[in-house]
């Protein structure tokens, strides 16, 4: 019998939600690490019981937790993130040079092949890797050092490296995204990097088509089509079919193309999901209606999915890492809100129901499909 485990990071702890393959009844475990911000939790694709979690607070800084039993027990592992060499500077909000300073880990991406290897995307933006199950961390300095680093500037949420995509077909290829620098790719295992932002247009920067400076919110990929990426930019939903060499807009008939979360159906590489948000100054759904939009055509043609979601007086946000899919035959889709709800659909978005309604603000949602 299949089982689904949903890993939820919130402002005040982590929660583990489990169900059988029907996804009708859920057990809720937590809060784990009560009182701490859990920016992200993610399990190893190789060993699903190996889960990594980013735990932080304004009082006690950054911690990394590791579970070897599917989230029942946890162990604090290495939390020392030291930039390689002299960190240098990036741009501050006012355009002045600002020293690179470690603040927190936004995203943990376990290796597709080795449960002891895991990547960490951090603020101020850099990519780190551990090859000993999180005990020790080393920067992949080619990213910050490739040349444009001194020109990167933070978005409103900080200068965070929030997206890490490991190619399932090319172990040397990694794609990352930084707010507000843009997307970058390495094809040599992280030694050298280049911006992959051609085709992005951002009206809020001096040169709207600049090589770097774009506020990318999230990127999603279907594992069978590693060259096709879908991006929720600050404004605009974008698509590339050549691993980021060039992008084109697929916002189509979305009522607003601002948003944070984006994901791809587990079995249909041209079916994608976004949650349109009204604007960058009003981080809530348009008209108070929480709607997931689904495109079955890889973008441009979108349909609202509303059944089971609040269609009045709803003013929550859905953050960039707070949407995920399972891989059961009928693809499940999950997302969490800043209002503390985690919604699930067991039929690719046709209908929705809340698993939980009253958690702290949800920062991240990941799903594990277990056999």
């Amino acid at each position, binding site marked *: 019998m299949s089982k689904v485990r949903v890993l939820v990071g919130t402002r005040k702890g982590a929660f583990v939600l489990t169900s059988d393959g029907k996804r009708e009844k859920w057990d809720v475990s937590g809060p784990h690490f009560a*009182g701490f911000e859990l920016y992200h939790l993610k399990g190893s694709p190789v060993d699903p019981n190996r889960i990594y979690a980013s735990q932080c607070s304004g009082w*006690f800084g950054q*911690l990394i937790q590791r579970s070897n039993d599917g989230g029942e027990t946890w162990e604090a592992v290495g939390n020392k*993130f030291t930039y390689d060499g002299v960190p240098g500077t990036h741009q501050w909000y006012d355009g002045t040079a600002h020293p690179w300073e470690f603040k927190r880990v936004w995203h943990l991406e376990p290796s597709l092949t080795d449960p002891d290897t895991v990547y960490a995307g951090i603020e101020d933006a850099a990519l780190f890797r551990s090859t000993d199950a999180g005990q020790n961390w080393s920067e992949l300095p080619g990213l910050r050092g490739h040349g444009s680093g001194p020109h990167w500037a933070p978005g409103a949420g900080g200068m965070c490296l929030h997206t890490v995509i490991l190619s399932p077909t090319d172990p040397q290829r990694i794609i990352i995204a930084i707010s507000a620098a843009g997307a970058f790719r390495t094809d040599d295992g992280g030694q050298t990097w280049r911006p992959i932002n051609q085709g992005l247009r951002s009206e809020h920067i001096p040169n709207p088509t600049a090589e770097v400076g774009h506020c990318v919110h999230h990127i999603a990929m279907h594992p069978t089509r590693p060259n096709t990426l879908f991006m929720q930019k600050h404004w605009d939903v974008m698509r590339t079919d050549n691993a980021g060499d060039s992008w084109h807009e697929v916002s189509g008939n979305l009522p607003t193309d601002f948003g944070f979360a984006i994901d791809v159906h587990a079995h249909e590489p041209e079916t994608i999901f976004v949650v349109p948000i009204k604007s960058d100054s009003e981080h809530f759904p348009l008209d108070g209606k929480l709607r997931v939009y689904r495109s079955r055509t890889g973008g441009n043609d979108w349909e609202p999915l509303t059944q089971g979601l609040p269609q009045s007086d709803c003013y929550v946000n859905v953050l960039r890492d707070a949407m995920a899919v399972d891989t059961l035959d009928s693809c499940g889709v999950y997302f969490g809100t800043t209002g503390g709800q985690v919604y699930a659909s067991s039929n690719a978005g046709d209908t929705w129901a809340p698993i939980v309604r009253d958690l702290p603000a949800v920062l991240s949602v990941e799903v594990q499909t277990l056999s």
Partner: protein
Amino acid sequence: MIRVLLPQHLRTLAQVHGEVQLEVEGQPTLRSVLDALEARYPMLCGTIRDHNTQQRRPFLRFFACEEDLSHESPDAPLPQPIANATEPLLIIGAIAGG
């Protein structure tokens, strides 16, 4: 022997209850006490002092004998009641918020 009282979240992290008792060689200082604390409870590394700068985290305070030692030199001798364990060194999470 030195007595140290951690804030609740750090007691949870270190899996200890109540005060921590540490052995420190020579005249105890904030630095030597924190070094001993982190050596015995490695999971606390980086949570009280920044890993790289070794500076006290801004929202933490060090109190002892009804005095705030947070801005003292980390190498200044701690008060005698701390050194002879009649008083604990208090590591306090500062109240924040409104």
